[in-house]
């Protein structure tokens, strides 16, 4: 009898659900902060991406996979994963196309004259954003697949 109750109440705890609901927006905000503030403090695309991914993984642990897929649909996740890699490589190729070297951000000054040195700073930001997208969606994709054995429905 007690085992039945445990099984019934497992994953339905009001405390866990409420605190996760409160925490997730702040974790996402912190993830974005870590990506954007990578120029001034420890952080950057990899770290911020993992924190962003952790927000959705926490959602999937506290509720279930379906709820996390409601907020981050599988197709959108796949889109982010590809978009991130494309942003990084696209910035590099764009630098080469406008007449500089591959990943030499100062060449982008010919497209939008902000100053060559400022473009170095901004190019790093664009690239970190791409890294963040790819890392975030890769982490979510890994968790979804590993926790559900590839079925992508119930989860742990």
């Amino acid at each position, binding site marked *: 009898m007690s085992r039945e109750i445990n099984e019934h109440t497992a994953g339905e705890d009001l405390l866990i659900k409420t605190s996760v609901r409160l925490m997730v927006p702040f974790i996402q905000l912190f993830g974005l902060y870590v990506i954007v503030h*990578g*120029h*001034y*403090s*420890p952080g*950057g*695309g*990899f770290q911020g991406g993992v924190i962003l991914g952790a927000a959705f993984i926490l959602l999937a642990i506290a509720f279930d996979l379906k709820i996390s897929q409601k907020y981050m649909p599988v197709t959108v996740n796949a889109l982010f*994963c590809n978009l*991130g*890699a494309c942003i*990084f*490589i696209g910035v*590099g190729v764009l630098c080469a196309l406008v007449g500089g070297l*591959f*990943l030499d*951000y100062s060449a982008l000054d010919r497209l939008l004259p902000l100053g060559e*040195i*400022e473009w*170095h*700073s901004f*190019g*790093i930001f664009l*690239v*970190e954003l*791409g*890294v963040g997208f*790819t*890392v975030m*969606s*890769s*982490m979510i*994709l*890994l968790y979804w*697949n*590993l926790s559900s*054995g*590839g*079925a*992508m*429905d119930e989860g742990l």
Partner: protein
Amino acid sequence: MKNLALLATLVTGALLLYGTKDFPAWGDPDAPASTYLSPTYIEEAVSQTHVPNIVTAVLGDYRGYDTMFETVVIYCAGMAVACVLWRKREE
């Protein structure tokens, strides 16, 4: 075939270990990396990129190629796991 693969691995490993004998000593001040590369990064990074965090400047700018393929490695890992595990629900 397995023995051949083992032999190839061992020979490659031995060659790589033999190659490390020519490396400069750990933290050697006369090594090429310490004589011009590190000082240049430390002195020039902020004025060349306007990024106050040298780690970010090296990672995103000077070593951009490296970071690009780090991203691709993570991308490939995610895609490989999805390709192996992801299946349609049996009906």
